[in-house]
């Protein structure tokens, strides 16, 4: 609920795209939960790269995975 509220606010301020705020916020929450579950299952890769993880996730979520030449500005 709180994340949705802020996502709507950011969308109004054109900080993020307005599409599908409800599902997008759940996807982000799910990603964090899923990484924790993977860690519990025994995957230690995120822990080994703990310092890089916030930047990797932030870049992926804000900029997406496409290389620049696939975007039309």
């Amino acid at each position, binding site marked *: 609920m709180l994340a949705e509220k802020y996502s709507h606010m950011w969308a109004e301020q*054109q*900080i*993020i*795209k307005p*599409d*599908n705020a*409800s*599902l*997008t916020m*759940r*996807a982000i*929450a*799910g*990603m*964090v*939960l*899923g*990484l*924790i*579950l*993977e860690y*519990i*299952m*025994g*995957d230690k*890769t*995120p822990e080994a*790269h703990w310092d*890089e*993880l916030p930047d*990797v*996730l932030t*870049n*992926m*979520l*804000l*900029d*997406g*995975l*496409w*290389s*620049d*030449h*696939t*975007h*039309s*500005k």
Partner: protein
Amino acid sequence: MTKTPDPIQELVAAARRKQILDAATQVFAEKGFHRATIKDVAHVAGIADGTIYTYFASKTEVLLGILHRLNESTEREQQLMPESEQDLRSFFTAYLRQRMALLWPNAEVFQAVLPEMLATEELRALYYQQVLVPTFTIAEHSFQAQNTTGQVRSIDVPLTVRAIAGLLLGLLTLQLLGDEVIAQRWGELPEVLTSLLFDGLQPGKETTHG
């Protein structure tokens, strides 16, 4: 001398394994993994208890068989290699759609086995080694190939693969925890996730599709 496998016997064995896994899926979903017995599975499958042990060494092995099937472990390598001419975005959406269509009807099984997996170290270790590690390896190769062709930007491949896998696992878990929005809009998720993962959240990064 190595014995050549008989194709007919292999087909029969595959059919029998499927029959056992189908029955176990139903039993685990109804009773939970801990309470279910091999006898229950045999009863639902309509076979003798001993027949199950011909194909699976234990109840844990049956569970791993179900998890491999849900993970589509044997098909994953082929699934994650787009055809050379294929638009990566369409490929990824189709891949997500196919994965999510498989996970949705099996959510109850996942709900039945997740607590057991989280609580049992041996099961977690087996799941990690037999299911997660091979899947991550295949996905990493696939992403590295896309990296090389320049379709996706330079990324930390191992962390990105884990984040995407975690996203699906997390969404399924949130839905099992009772999130109604995810339950109601599960069918929309492949497009929404593709947009999120490829275009990102920031405005002004719409994709040219190809």
